[in-house]
């Protein structure tokens, strides 16, 4: 049984349907990446999973239990198993609390009174390679990388089974980025964590994700193993995203697939294939609505698929 099973998840705010049916699964110990431009709905997906954003339709099963629309009381025990990391490393830490209090908050929230919080703080800081005197610091005294590690320590406090991470490398310097990814990789192996990572940085995805899904306008347009997507993606949008990645080499020959324009407004979704207007490979047949087809575990929603 999958650890997390998201089925046809739909979210709309008034007339704007941000999620138009998202489905994917995450197995225990697996890292799944959701990739897409801003506005593709990827943040809404994980917020909806965590019950922080509404989802009017569909199902979210964690360990086989339905949690979409569950009450906070029903969710609270599950919060031990699902931890979340937000985009802004410093901004996601309560500004008036010390690091020590921040990382031991999960114990207080879950009512674990028997724990020695000082001891736990020390253990958690050690786990994320921060010196123990950091327990007395306030968030504004931390660098982005340090704050991010505090966020990781807090997410790991209750030994969750699943971590939902929103752009875990956002706002971090290149020299620190690797440190965080190594930490996540290491912890994942040691603790058997499953992760859903949201990012627009494909260079990062390659090193952490086992499988990935590419989102466009609130839908998955392609899904497969990371290796396969990087080697043989078939959706033009995925190719565009991959080709937009730059390399630190002035002589690199970048075969850019130029993407026309910007993502259309969610209020006026295009007819037929919603990527059609920006797609360099669109043909007249693309006016039909493409369906999601899965072949050998590789999902695709496209009427003009590319071959490698």
């Amino acid at each position, binding site marked *: 049984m999958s650890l997390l099973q998201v089925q046809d998840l739909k979210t709309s705010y008034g007339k704007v349907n941000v999620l138009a049916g998202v489905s994917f699964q995450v197995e225990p110990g697996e890292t799944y990446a959701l990739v897409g431009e801003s506005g593709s709905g990827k943040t809404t997906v994980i917020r909806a999973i965590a019950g922080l954003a509404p989802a009017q339709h569909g199902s979210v099963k964690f360990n086989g239990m339905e949690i979409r629309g569950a009450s906070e009381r029903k969710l609270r025990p599950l919060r031990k198993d699902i931890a979340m990391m937000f985009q802004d490393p410093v901004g996601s*830490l309560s500004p008036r609390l010390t690091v020590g209090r921040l990382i031991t*908050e999960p114990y207080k929230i879950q009512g674990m009174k028997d724990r020695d919080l000082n001891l736990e703080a020390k253990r958690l800081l050690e786990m994320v390679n921060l010196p123990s005197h950091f327990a007395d610091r306030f968030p504004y005294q931390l660098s982005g990388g340090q704050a991010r590690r505090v966020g990781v320590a807090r997410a790991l406090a209750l030994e969750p089974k699943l971590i939902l991470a929103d752009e875990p490398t956002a706002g971090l310097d290149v020299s620190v980025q690797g440190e965080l990814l190594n930490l996540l990789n290491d912890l994942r192996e040691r603790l058997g964590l499953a992760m859903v990572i949201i990012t627009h940085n494909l260079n990062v995805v390659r090193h952490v994700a086992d499988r990935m899904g590419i989102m466009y306008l609130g839908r998955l347009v392609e899904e497969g193993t990371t290796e396969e997507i990087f080697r043989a993606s078939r959706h033009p949008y995925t190719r565009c995203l991959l080709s937009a990645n730059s390399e630190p080499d002035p002589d690199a020959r970048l075969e850019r697939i130029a993407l026309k324009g910007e993502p259309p407004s969610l209020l006026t979704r295009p007819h037929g294939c919603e990527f059609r207007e920006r797609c360099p490979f669109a043909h007249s047949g693309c006016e039909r609505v493409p369906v999601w087809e899965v072949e050998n575990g590789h999902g695709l929603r496209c009427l003009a698929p590319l071959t490698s």
Partner: protein
Amino acid sequence: MTNSRSELTQIVVGIVRDPLGLVGLLIVGSIVFCAIFAAWIAPYDPVAMNIQARLEGPSLAHPLGTDQLGRDTFSRVIMGSQVALKVALPAVFGAMFIGLALGMIAGYGPKWLDNLLMLLFDTLRSFPTVMFALAVVALVGPSLQTVVLVVMATSIPTYARVARTQTLSLRNSEFILAERAMGASVFRILGVHMLPNIIGVLAVLAAMDIPTVIALEAGLSFLGLGVKPPTPSWGALLKDGYALIRQTPWLVVGGGLPVILATLGFTFFGETMRDVVDPKLRKQR
């Protein structure tokens, strides 16, 4: 590193470092000192009459002269600080805490409750303070408590509105979302995470509100609606001084100067505090 010092010490240090803040702190400190030790500082009994020494000018014996009943003005000014703070502190802090609670409920609670509370605040605020005071005094008679009550009732909406706005803006910040994702209860979110981020703003507002209340008390007493004679209040002094301004200007000075000083002191103090309470701003100083 600065983190070895507590936040309170940092705030005090921050205020003292700023020249304006230091002046404010000194004035506020001396008013509080006068109020606490009034009985020892005042050279005379502020209500003791001495008909032989009526309306005297300043002298060594009476630094600010005497009033129409021969009472020592300086002693009355000193004792007046007690009345001023007895009105201002409970009124302002009472209003602040009630406003804070209601404002946070309005900002974090369901929409209908927010609408209801906002309607209540707007209604309360639409009463002009002095008119409202007149009405209440007419009903229950003039007293210190009446003044406190009136001031509290009319300033709650201001605090509540500020608290509500702050709550609304914090509500969708990532750190509050993070708390929700961990399953923190509403009380925990409001009490542990929002309160410390809101109270600083309100405390500053309160510090700057205190002089207004002192002036209001003086005004109400001036109109004869505040503190009853012979209790020495700055407003009562002003009232007597106003009537006798042709005979001696010293009563007006004795009543007016402390009001002005208190206003400046608390305003300086409040303004410096505003810059100092924010840990991020403090870091830059």
